[in-house]
């Protein structure tokens, strides 16, 4: 068998196993549109815009999805129950050896799962895929205590700038979350690169994305395999009003960093007016997962 064929078959095996994992747990596979009317408002993720002709000489802007998140949430709010999807996603302004403008994402949502039950299910999935290394679960705050001796949840903008300066790093950032991320990338990631499977959970509330907030933390987690980010998940906020607030916050930040002005996706908010069921969801980068398993 040629090397290419061998690789293709390995990849196919991975996809088959993932599908079987979810089918056996009665999670429904879905396919949602990838050509959307609204770009993502995520501060540091950019949609790729395309022009389509909806009629003769009527060019219209459309955006390739950067993740199937909102489309799947439309289904959840309408009563889809547990769902999963494997699809291509597209992002502008991605660079570096671990990033690409197009990659494959596995995204799934589990009704009445909290963050920790979802983490456990991902561990089951990894085991079934043959990744049986010991698992480390550590909270964001604990990781900073252990690997940096830093009380990250109680550090304000000034404290964080001082820490960055003491490490000889530029501290010219306007937001707490950017300095938290700088320190995470600089101090924590190199440490956890020694750990085969590492879940970091309970992110600071400033990095909540669309996760439920509980005091100083958000019920959000990330999976790192040998220091490479593989998955990002959270306990989902449920009401349309909360989504509106989070989107507005993202738009405000995009404005501050002089990114293109965007609007809140009103159609989405209308569609989820009934709210989302209590659930948790996660996105997993398939190519990164695949390379971590083949290695």
């Amino acid at each position: 068998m040629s090397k290419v064929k061998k690789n293709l078959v390995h990849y196919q095996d991975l996809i088959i196993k993932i599908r079987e994992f979810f089918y056996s747990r009665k999670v429904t596979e879905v396919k949602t549109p990838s050509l959307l009317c609204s770009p993502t408002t995520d501060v540091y993720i950019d949609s790729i815009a395309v022009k389509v002709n909806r009629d003769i000489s009527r060019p219209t802007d459309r955006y390739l999805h950067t993740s199937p998140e909102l489309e799947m949430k439309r289904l959840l709010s309408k009563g889809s129950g547990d769902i999963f999807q494997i699809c291509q996603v597209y992002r502008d302004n991605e660079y570096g050896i671990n990033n690409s403008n197009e990659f494959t994402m596995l995204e799934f949502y589990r009704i009445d799962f909290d963050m920790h039950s979802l983490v456990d299910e991902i561990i089951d999935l990894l085991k079934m895929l043959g990744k049986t290394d010991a698992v480390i679960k550590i909270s964001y705050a604990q990781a900073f205590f252990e690997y940096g001796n830093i009380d990250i949840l109680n550090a304000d903008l000034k404290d964080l700038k001082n820490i960055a300066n003491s490490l000889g790093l530029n501290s010219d950032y306007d937001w707490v979350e950017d300095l938290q991320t700088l320190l995470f990338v600089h101090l924590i990631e190199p440490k956890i690169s020694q750990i085969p499977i590492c879940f970091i959970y309970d992110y600071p509330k400033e990095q909540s994305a669309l996760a439920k907030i509980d005091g100083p933390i958000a019920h959000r987690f990330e999976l790192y395999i040998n220091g490479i980010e593989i998955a990002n998940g959270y306990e989902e906020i449920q009401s349309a009003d909360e989504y509106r607030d989070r989107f507005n916050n993202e738009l405000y930040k995009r404005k501050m960093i002089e990114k293109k002005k965007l609007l809140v996706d009103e159609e989405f908010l209308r569609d989820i007016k009934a709210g989302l069921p209590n659930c948790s969801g996660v996105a997993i980068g398939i190519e990164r997962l695949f390379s971590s398993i083949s290695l």
Partner: protein
Amino acid sequence: MNYSTSQFKNGLKLILDGNPCSIVNNEIVKPGKGQAFNRVKFKDLITGKTLEKTYKSGESLEGADVMELEMQYLYSDGEKWHFMEPESFEQFDLSEESMGSAIDYLVEQDICIVTLWNNNPITVVPPIQVILEVIDTDPGLKGDTAGTGGKPATLNTGVVVQVPLFVGIGDKVKVDTRTNEYSGRA
């Protein structure tokens, strides 16, 4: 001249904390929900120390005017070590501190790599392998075939290297300058 993180690549020379440094590793990290960073490893060209820094992508740093030139080692007057660039015949000198361990390996006429910063020499790298002469060592012990790693020998530059027992005074030996190890008879 300033360089933005998008121009970072291995070997690029930049000024860091006032010293010229060379990039030895440049990694772009783009967290799923955060901004992009460059995690960079530098070597300080003066102290030789490794530094790790993380920059927000798009930041820029001042470039360092650093050149590496092949030069011939001429002589030492005890305070300075003198070199010549063979094409221009331009001469440069380095202090004992800047010479570092190169002092242990260079003999007159040797060709080595001298690093210039703003046209001033800052470091010198000797050839990977040099040929030096043994000026002092204990006589080989006949019959000792246990091969216990040899014996110390002082070479004509003053450096001490472990050599096999059969090597005697006046012999020429090859030394690996990266490890300070004997690598054969010349």
